[in-house]
C-alpha cells in the first residue's frame, strides 16, 4: 500500500517549482541544487511506486478524500508507474546535461519551469479523471511554452507562437470532446466512463462516435500523428537542446492516453465505436512513420533530423498501439521506453554538435568540431538505436512490433522495414557530412577550443547506458511489460480500484 506517496510525483515538483521561483530566483547555484535534489527524490519515489505497483493491484488516491466518480482520483497501476519512472529518469539526465552546458544560465526561471513541467507530466500519467487529464495537459503545456522560448531569439519565439497556437486549438478540441462525453455519460472519471460507455443506448451512438474520434484526435496531436504532426518539427528543432530532450516524453503522453482510453473506454469490442479508432489510427501511423523517415533523409539541419526521428518513432509506436492486443501493446510500451531514451539522447548529442559548429545546416561540411571523436561515437550509438539496427534496444523494439503484427504482415512489415533502411541512410548521410567530410574540407590542425563539459557527456552517457541496459536486460523487462499489458487488458482491476458506488 503506497497511499499518500501516490500524490508525491505531482506534489514534489509543484512545491519545488514554487520554492525555486519564489525564494531562489536570483541564485542559480541554489536553483541547481534544489532542482537536482528534487529530481533525484522524484526518481526514488517513482522507483518505490513502481516496485509497489508491480506486486499489488492498481491503487487509488483520493485527492480531497471524495469518493471516486465525484471526487478526483489519482490511480497508480503498472502502466502509470512505468511512465512516471521513465519521466524521472529522463528528468535527471536532462537536468545534469543542462547544468553541464550552462543552458540554464542563458535565460531565467529554467529550473522552476522544469519542475512545473515534471508536475504536469507526472500528473497526466497518474490521474484517473478525464477532465483532470486536461488540466495536467495544460500545466505541462504552459511550462513547456516557457521552456520552449528559454534563452529567446527570433526564430525560437516565432516557432513558439506556432506551438502555442497549435496547442490552444488542441485544448479547445479536448474540451469539446470532454463536454460531448459528459453530456452523454454524465461522468468524467475514466473508470466510471469505461463502465457507462459500455452500456450506452443506441440514441447516443452518433454523438459518442464523434466525441471518441475528437478525443483521440487530441491525443494524436500530442503524439504527433500524421496529419496532426505539423507542430513537432518546428517546435523541437527550435527549442533549446535539453528542452527538446525533455519533450521526448511529451509525445509519449499522447501514446499513453491513447492506450489508456483505447483499452479501457473505447476497446475494439465496444458496441458503438468498435474498431473505428483502430481503423483510423493504423493508416495514420503508417504515414507518420513514412513521413518521419523521409524527413530524416531530407532534413536540411541536424535539429530537424532529430525532430523527424521523433516523428518516426511515434509512427512505429502508434502502429503497434493500433492493433490493441496485449502483445502489440507490450511491444508498443517497450518501444516507447526505448524511443524516449534514444530520442532524448539524440537531441542532447545534436545540441553538443550545434554548440560547437557555426550552424547546424547539413548542406555543407565545416571544419572538425572540438571533441569530434567522442561526439561522433555518441552520435553513431544513438543513430543505431534510433534507426533500429542491432545490437541496441531499437532493434528489439522493432522486432517485438513486427512479431506482434504478424496478421497483416505484408503491409506493416514492408513499411517498417523499408523506413528503417531510409532512416539508416539518412543518419549515415548526416554523420558523414558532420564528422567525415569535416576532415576532408579542412587541413588537419588543432580543433577549435571548446570547454570539455564532462557533466554533459555523463548525462548523454547515462541515457545511452539506459539503452544498453534495456538491451541486456531485455528478457526481464519484456516479461515485466507483458505483465503490465495483461494487467491493462484486465480492465476490471482498474475499475474496481476506483470503488465506484453501485448503480441502482
Amino acid at each position, binding site marked *: 500500500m503506497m497511499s499518500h506517496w501516490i500524490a508525491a510525483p505531482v506534489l514534489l515538483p509543484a512545491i519545488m517549482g514554487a520554492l525555486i521561483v519564489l525564494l531562489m530566483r536570483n541564485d542559480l547555484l541554489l536553483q541547481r541544487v534544489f532542482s537536482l535534489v528534487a529530481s533525484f527524490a522524484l526518481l526514488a519515489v517513482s522507483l518505490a511506486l513502481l516496485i509497489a505497483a508491480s506486486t499489488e493491484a492498481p491503487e487509488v488516491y483520493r485527492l480531497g478524500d471524495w469518493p471516486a466518480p465525484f471526487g478526483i482520483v489519482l490511480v497508480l497501476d503498472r502502466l502509470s508507474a512505468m511512465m512516471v519512472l521513465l519521466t524521472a529518469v529522463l528528468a535527471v539526465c536532462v537536468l545534469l546535461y543542462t547544468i553541464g552546458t550552462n543552458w540554464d544560465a542563458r535565460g531565467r526561471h529554467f529550473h522552476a519551469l522544469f519542475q512545473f513541467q515534471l508536475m504536469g507530466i507526472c500528473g497526466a500519467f497518474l490521474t484517473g479523471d478525464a477532465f483532470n487529464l486536461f488540466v495536467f495537459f495544460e500545466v505541462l503545456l504552459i511550462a513547456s511554452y516557457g521552456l520552449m522560448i528559454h534563452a529567446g531569439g*527570433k526564430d525560437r519565439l516565432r516557432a513558439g507562437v506556432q506551438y*502555442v497556437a497549435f496547442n490552444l486549438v488542441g485544448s479547445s478540441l479536448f474540451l469539446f470532446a470532454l*463536454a460531448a462525453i*459528459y453530456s452523454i455519460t454524465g461522468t468524467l472519471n475514466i473508470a466510471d466512463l469505461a463502465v457507462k460507455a459500455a452500456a450506452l443506448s443506441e440514441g447516443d451512438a452518433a454523438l459518442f462516435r464523434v466525441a471518441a474520434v475528437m478525443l483521440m484526435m487530441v491525443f494524436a496531436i500530442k503524439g504527433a500523428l500524421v496529419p496532426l504532426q505539423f507542430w513537432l518539427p518546428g517546435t523541437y528543432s527550435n527549442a533549446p537542446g535539453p528542452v527538446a530532450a525533455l519533450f521526448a516524453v511529451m509525445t509519449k503522453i499522447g501514446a499513453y492516453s491513447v492506450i489508456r482510453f483505447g483499452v479501457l473506454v473505447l476497446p475494439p469490442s465496444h458496441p458503438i465505436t468498435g474498431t473505428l479508432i483502430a481503423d483510423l489510427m493504423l493508416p495514420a501511423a503508417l504515414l507518420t512513420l513514412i513521413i518521419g523517415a523521409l524527413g530524416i533523409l531530407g532534413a536540411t539541419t541536424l535539429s530537424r533530423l532529430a525532430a523527424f526521428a521523433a516523428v518516426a518513432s511515434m509512427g512505429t509506436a502508434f502502429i503497434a498501439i493500433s492493433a490493441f492486443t496485449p502483445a502489440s501493446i507490450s511491444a508498443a510500451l517497450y518501444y516507447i521506453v526505448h524511443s524516449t531514451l534514444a530520442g532524448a539522447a539524440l537531441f542532447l548529442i545534436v545540441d553538443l554538435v550545434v554548440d560547437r559548429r557555426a*550552424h547546424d545546416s547539413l548542406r555543407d561540411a565545416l571544419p572538425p568540431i572540438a571533441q569530434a571523436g567522442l561526439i561522433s561515437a555518441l552520435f553513431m550509438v544513438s543513430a543505431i538505436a534510433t534507426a533500429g539496427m542491432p545490437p541496441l534496444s531499437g532493434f528489439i523494439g522493432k522486432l517485438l512490433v513486427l512479431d506482434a503484427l504478424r496478421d497483416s504482415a505484408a503491409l506493416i512489415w514492408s513499411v517498417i522495414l523499408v523506413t528503417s533502411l531510409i532512416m539508416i541512410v539518412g543518419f549515415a548521410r548526416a554523420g558523414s557530412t558532420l564528422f567525415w567530410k569535416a576532415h576532408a574540407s579542412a587541413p588537419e590542425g588543432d580543433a577549435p577550443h571548446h570547454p570539455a563539459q564532462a557533466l554533459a557527456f555523463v548525462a548523454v552517457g547515462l541515457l545511452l547506458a539506459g539503452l544498453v541496459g534495456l538491451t541486456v536486460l531485455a528478457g526481464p523487462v519484456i516479461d515485466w511489460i507483458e505483465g503490465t499489458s495483461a494487467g491493462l487488458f484486465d480492465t476490471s482491476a482498474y475499475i474496481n480500484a476506483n470503488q465506484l458506488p453501485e448503480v441502482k
Partner: protein
Amino acid sequence: MEALVASAIGMMTAAGVYLMLRQRTFPVIVGLTLLTYAVNVFLFTSGRLATNVPAIYGEGAPGYADPLPQALVLTAIVISFGMTAVIVMMALGAFLEAGHDKVDMNDDDTPANGGQK
C-alpha cells in the same frame, strides 16, 4: 433557447476557425479567443439547458441544473485566459524581434537555409 445557443456556438466556432487560418498573429489570436468562447459555452450546455431550477436537488424541486459543467467551465475559462495571455506576450516578443507578425516560418532567415542558429 436551444437553437439560439447552438447557433451562437456554431457561429463563434466558424468565425474562430476562419480567423485562425489567417497569416498574421493578431487575427490568429482573436480567432483562438473566439474558439475558446465557443468551447466554454459548449461545455456549459453539456449539463443541459435548464432555467430557474436549483443547482442542488431537494425535496419538491422541479429539477436541477447540473453544477459540474459550471465548475468545469470556470476551470476552462481560467486556463484559456492564461493561455491567451501567454500567446499575446510571445507574439509581442516575436514581433519585436522579427519586425513583422507573420505566423508562418518560411522566411529566408530560418536556420533551414543556413542562417545563424
